[in-house]
C-alpha cells in the first residue's frame, strides 16, 4: 500500500476505526503480487470475499494480521496487503495464538487449506478452538492435496482415487464443522466459493465475532479434484438460513454438520457469545494495552522480592 503512514495515523481514532476520513477500499488491500493459483481455483473466491469483508468492516490494512501455513491456499497472505505471516505447514494457528495474545489489538485472520489445518495441523486446530482464541480461521477446503499434485486429504471422500490412493481411499473423512462445534469453537460456518456474497457475510460475521470463528469454505481444486467440482457443489449447497436453522441450537447444529448428500448445508451452523476468549481470561491483559507494546524491565522493588525468596 503506497499511503503515507502519517496520513493513515490521522485517520485512525483511538478505537482503531477511521475517524471520518475516507473509507478503505478494495484497492487498499491489493497485495504486492497477483495470485499464482490455477485459473478457476476456488481460492480466488476466498481472497475476493476476504478483501470485501475487510472493506465492509472498514478495517485498515495495518490493523489486520493474516497468518497462513503451507499449501496453495496458504499463499493468500502474499496476495493481500495486511501484516502477514506465511508460516510452516500446519502451524498457522499456533503462531496466530501467540500473535493474538501478544497484541490483542490486531485482528487476526488465519487462512489455509484442509491438509494444513485438519491434517498436519490437527492438534493445534482442536486446542485453539477449545481455548476460544479470538481469531477468524478460513479454511479453503478442496478435499485434496493440490500443491503436492494430488493426494488424499483429511476431507477427501471415501472411495476417492488419487495418486496416493489409486484403488480409492478407504478412510472416512473428517467433518470439520462437527469437529469444530464439538471442540469448542464459538462461531462455526461453512461457505462456498461459488457464492462469494454469502461467503463475505460469513467472514464478516466471523471477524466481528469475539472468539474462535471457523469458516470452512468449499474451494474446488479444478486441477486435482475432479469429484468435488463447482458442478458438484453448485446444485447441492443449500443455505441454512433458508432451512430455518437456528445457530444457537446445539443439537440442530451438530445434526446439520453431518448432512452430506444431495443437499449440503452452508451458512452459520453454530454461534455462542457467552464464552470469554483466551485473551479476556488472561488477567495480565486486563489493563496496560497489548503485551507487545509494554516497557521491559522490572522495578528494583520487585527484583528485591525475587531475590528475597532465595534467601
Amino acid at each position, binding site marked *: *500500500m*503506497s499511503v*503515507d*503512514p*502519517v496520513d*493513515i*495515523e490521522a485517520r*485512525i481514532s483511538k478505537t482503531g476505526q477511521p475517524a471520518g476520513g475516507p473509507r478503505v477500499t478494495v484497492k487498499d488491500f491489493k497485495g*504486492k*503480487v497477483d495470485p499464482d493459483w490455477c485459473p478457476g481455483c476456488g481460492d480466488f473466491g476466498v481472497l475476493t470475499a476476504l478483501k470485501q469483508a475487510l472493506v465492509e468492516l472498514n478495517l*485498515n*490494512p*495495518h*490493523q489486520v*494480521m493474516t*497468518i497462513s501455513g503451507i499449501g496453495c491456499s496458504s*499463499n493468500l*497472505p*502474499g496476495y493481500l*496487503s*495486511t*501484516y*502477514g*505471516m*506465511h*508460516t*510452516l505447514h500446519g*502451524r498457522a494457528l*499456533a*503462531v*496466530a*495464538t*501467540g500473535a*493474538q*495474545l*501478544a*497484541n490483542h*489489538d*490486531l485482528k487476526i485472520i488465519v487462512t489455509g487449506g484442509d491438509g494444513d489445518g485438519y491434517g498436519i495441523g490437527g*492438534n*493445534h486446530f482442536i*486446542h485453539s478452538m477449545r481455548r476460544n482464541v479470538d481469531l477468524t480461521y478460513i479454511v479453503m477446503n478442496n478435499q485434496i492435496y493440490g500443491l503436492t499434485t494430488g493426494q488424499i486429504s483429511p476431507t477427501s471422500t471415501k472411495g476417492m482415487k488419487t495418486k496416493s490412493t489409486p484403488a480409492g481411499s478407504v478412510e472416512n473423512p473428517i467433518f470439520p464443522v462437527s469437529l469444530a462445534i464439538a471442540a469448542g469453537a464459538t462461531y462455526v460456518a461453512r461457505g462456498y466459493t461459488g457464492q462469494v456474497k454469502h461467503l463475505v457475510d460469513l467472514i464478516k460475521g466471523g471477524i466481528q465475532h469475539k472468539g474462535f470463528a471457523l469458516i470452512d469454505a468449499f474451494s474446488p481444486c479444478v486441477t486435482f479434484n475432479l469429484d468435488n467440482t463447482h458442478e458438484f457443489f453448485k446444485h447441492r449447497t443449500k443455505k441454512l438460513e433458508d432451512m430455518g436453522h437456528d445457530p444457537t441450537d446445539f443439537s440442530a447444529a451438530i445434526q446439520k454438520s453431518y448432512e452430506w448428500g444431495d443437499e449440503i448445508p452452508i451458512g452459520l451452523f453454530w454461534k455462542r457469545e457467552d464464552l470469554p476468549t483466551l485473551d479476556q481470561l*488472561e*488477567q*495480565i*491483559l486486563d489493563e496496560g494495552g497489548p*503485551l*507487545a*507494546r*509494554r516497557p*521491559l*524491565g*522490572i522495578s*528494583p522493588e*520487585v*527484583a528485591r522480592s*525475587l*531475590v528475597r525468596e*532465595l*534467601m
Partner: protein
Amino acid sequence: MATVDLSIGIGGAAGQGIATPGDILARIFVRRGLHLNAYNAYQSIIRGGHIFLTLRTSDAPVLTFGDKLDILMPLNQDTMNRHLRLMKSGSVVLYNSDKIKPGEVEAGVQLCPFSVKELAPNIRGDLVQNTIALAAVLRLIGVEFKILEDILTLQFKRKGEAVIAENIGVARAGYDYAGTHFKPFAFSLPDTGKKLAFFEGNQALAMGGAAAGVRFYCAYPMSPASGVLHWMARHGRQLGIMVRQIEDEIGVINVAIGAAHAGCRAMCATSGGGFALMSEALGSAAMMEIPVVCINVQRAGPATGVPTKTEQGDLWQVMGAGQGDYPRIIVAPTNIPDCFKTVPQLFNLVDKFQCPGIVISDLLLSEGRSSVDPAELDFNVPIDRGEVIGLNGSVPPVNGGYNRYQLTDTGISPRALPGTAGYTHVVATDEHDEDGVLISDEFTNPHKRQAMHEKRMRKMDLILPLLEPPTLFGPEDAQVTLVGWGSTEGVIHEAMQKLANEEWIAANNLQIKWMVPLHCQAIMAIASKRKKLIIVENNYSGQFARYLRSETGIVADGHIRKYDGEPFMPHHIVDGVKKILAGTTQKYVPVHEIMV
C-alpha cells in the same frame, strides 16, 4: 582455605519427604553465608524408588556435590544398603533404629541410631524421623537449636500452634539425644556474617528471562525443564509475563514465534525430545528473521531415555536442528549463576540479529542448586531491542516503500512491528525477496536466492566479535589442559585443585560457553600452547571433541567421557587424567560408584 567442607546425603523413597530437610539445611547454610552445591539423584517415579540428595557446604566456594559424604541420613533400609559401604572413617550415619539396621561398616564410621518410638512415642507418621535426624545433624555440626526452632515455626505457621509445638518438641528431643549420645564433629558450623541466596538452574534461567524483559513464556511440561515453567507460572502475574502451557512442543515454539513477531520478548524451554519437535520451527524463526529464545535442558537420551538423569548428548542435535543452513546462536552456561546472566545477554543478541537463540543446559545445571551472592543477581541489565520500527511510538515516514528484508552489509534489516501504520509486510518461511514476496514459486530466481541466503548468514560474522572469547583458567604452563563445555566447569575446576594438591599435576581449563558461533581463533591460540589436551564431556561419542576438531583441526590427546546418566564427580576426572597422562588409555570412562 576452607575451614569447613561438609557433605550430607539424605536418601529414601520418593514420597518420604526428603526435600524438606534438604531445603531447611540449605537455608541454614546460606543464611550463615556458607556456600552450597546440591544435587538430587532421582527417578521417574512419584512414590517409591530411591532418591538421594547430596548437599555440600563450605565457607569457600563449592563447585560440585563432591566426592565424599560426611553425614548419611538414610530414611529407609534401601538407602542404608546402597550407601553405607561408601562411608569413610570420620563420617556419621544417623538412622531410625526402629526400622533400619546398619550393615558392615568401615572402622571409624560413627553409627548414630535413634529410636523414634522412644523419642516421640505419641506421634504418628513417618515424617517424624526426618525431623529427629535433622535436629541431630544440627547438633553434631554445632548449630544452635534456636535456628531450627525459628525455621520450624515458619514452616508450620499455616498448620497452627499445636503442630508447631509438636514439631519443635520432637526436634528438641532429637537435638538433646544427639548431644548426650553421639560424638559431634570437631568444628561448629561457622557464620560468615554475610547472607547468601541459593537457587536451582531452572530458576536462574527463568529469572534471567524476567530480567531480560520476557513478556511471553510458553512450554509443554518435560523433565528436567519444567522448573522454568513452574517459576514463570508462579511469578507471571506479578511480573507481567504471560505464561501458557501449549498442546505440544511444535505448538510451543510456534506460539512463541507468533508472540515474538508481534513484539514480545518470547522464551520457551524443553528437553531433548521436545527440542526435536521444535527443530523445523527454529529454522522458520531464522527464515522469517524473528528473535526467539529456546532452552534445551538435556537429559539422558536417545528417545525417552532416562528422563531424570543428566547428559550432554544434544550438542549435535542443537547445532543441526532443522533443515538447511540458518543463523543461530547457541550458548551453554557454565554454572548456575551464569544461567541467570546468560539469558539477558542472549536476548540482546537475538533481538539485534533477528534470529533464534538456544540455551543448552542439562539436568545437572538446571536441577542442581547453588548458592549465589545476592549482589550478583542484578535485574537491571542492559536491554537492546535492535532496530524495530513502531516499538516506541515514533514511526519514520516510508520513503519509497518498506522492505522488511532489505539487503544490507550487516545482514540486519529494519523490523517493523505488526500494527504499525504504513509498514504492512509479509514474513515468509518460503524463500523471499527483500520485499517479502516469495521467490520459491512463480518468481524463483537463483541470484536473489543466493543474495537472501547470504544476507541471513552474514549475521553470524558480526555476532562472533560480540561474544566473550573463552579464556584459560589456571596456570598457563600446566601439564594438561582440560577442555569442557557448559555445565562441567565446576567439576573440572575442583578436579584441578585435587590434581594439584593430591597428585602434583598442574592442570588448567578451557571452558567453552558460546558454542555457535565458535571463537575458533581464540581457542586455537590457547590450544597451541598446551602440553596435553583432554576433553571432558558427559556423552558417549565426544560430540564436542568432534565439533572442535571440525572447526579448528584440534585433535585431543585424551578423552574423559561419562554417559551413565549421573554427573562427573571430581575424582572421576582426576582418575582419567592420571590414566591418560600415564599413557594407559586415550579414553577414560569412569564407573559411577553410587547406585542411584
